[in-house]
């Protein structure tokens, strides 16, 4: 091995994290849709969150999402529809946004320690899909819905029901993320980290 090796986080890791955060931000340039009674945009950025975990791995994936969250906090318009600023955290979608970080982490962990170890094509594809659903949907909602309820005064049950509006879209995104991750893995082999 002749590439310089470093212990801990390398320059390349920092770059990968930043470029993936850039992809998540760029996915926000696709205009978001707002539907239904819950005022949370349907955004392609969650696809980027699932992909960050599945392609980069748990730590780097979570860091990529963390970087997007940090940029939001310092007032850059990095979220879908050009939104940003501290107000987002106070608003009804703040919980989802923060949930992206553990979401990518969980997706990454499941891909790294489970899906990547499977050898049969179908089993592996299914495992990656499950990882995207678990991290990108279950974990993100686990933070998003309680905060929606707190910030809006809606009872948890109603907030959860409202949150279900996103399930169909997010399931489609999970399938897309699994297909993309599979395609990327076939073209470019990278250790998950």
């Amino acid at each position, binding site marked *: 091995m002749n590439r310089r090796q470093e212990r801990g986080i390398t320059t390349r890791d920092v770059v990968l994290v930043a470029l993936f955060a850039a992809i998540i931000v760029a996915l926000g340039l696709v205009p978001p849709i707002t539907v239904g009674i819950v005022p949370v945009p349907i955004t392609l950025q969650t696809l980027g969150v699932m992909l960050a975990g599945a392609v980069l791995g748990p730590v780097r994936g979570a860091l990529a999402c963390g970087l997007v969250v940090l940029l939001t906090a310092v007032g850059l318009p990095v979220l879908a529809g050009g939104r940003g600023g501290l107000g987002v955290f106070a608003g009804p979608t703040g919980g989802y946004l923060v949930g992206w970080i553990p979401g990518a982490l969980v997706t990454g962990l499941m891909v790294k320690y489970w899906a990547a170890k499977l050898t049969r094509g179908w089993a592996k594809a299914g495992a990656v899909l499950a990882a995207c659903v678990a991290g990108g949907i279950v974990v993100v909602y686990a933070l998003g819905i309680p905060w929606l309820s707190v910030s809006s005064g809606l009872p948890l049950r109603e907030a959860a029901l409202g949150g279900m509006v996103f399930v169909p879209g997010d399931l489609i995104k999970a399938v897309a993320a699994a297909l993309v991750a599979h*395609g990327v893995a*076939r*073209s*470019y082999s990278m250790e998950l980290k």
Partner: protein
Amino acid sequence: MTAPAGPAPGAAPGERPSAAEAPAPVIELHGVSVGYDGRTVLSGLDLRLAERRIGVIGQNGSGKSTLARLLNGLVVPDEGRVLVDGRDTRTDGRRVRSEVGFVFQNPDNQIVFPIVAEDMAFGLKNLGLPKKEIPGRVAEALESFGIGHLAERHSHLLSGGEKQLVALASVMVMRPRTVVFDEPTTLLDLRNRNRIRDAVDAMAPAAVVVTHDLELVSGYDRVLVVHEGGIAFDGAPGEAVAWYREHCS
């Protein structure tokens, strides 16, 4: 290096008359102006392109790529019209693109699937070709460039020259009548550049080649120099290159 053996690239048997015999489509620009964000890049262009080998040269940012993209409707004019055999690129873009292929500078952009043959098949599926015809067409296109052995290889792991040949094959497999090239040899060494040059020279469809490699266009039928929003020179290769060297270096 000479043209690869076997059938002339793109000149496939059956169905359509061999492109070598079919005349190149006539591309006409009528009063075409284009700009980005309000800044005009090309203005008031009138052109009629019917030669089999046309070169386009000019400075960085002069509008060569924009001109190339106009020819198959990837860019539509702000004013004026572009017609390919009479079909307007604005209203008939998809149809025009099936006649006018496009090979880009960076072959990485073109690769969708990791395996060469899969990637080539993908384009054909999108044309709606019956499934069982696809493998034959793919093999034929690869053979015609002498790269049949690459069919099962990983596209992203090919060398620069091989990738560019695959990109060319993946456009040729769709049997366009004209192929537009936007700097197809910039990333290549002498040998690969010559391979691409020979492949372009030997292929049946007409070609419009945008390039900074002034040697490449030396045998062409016609060379355009794009400069300051228009075609500043239009004529034989020798004179065009001389004009360009004098005014743009």
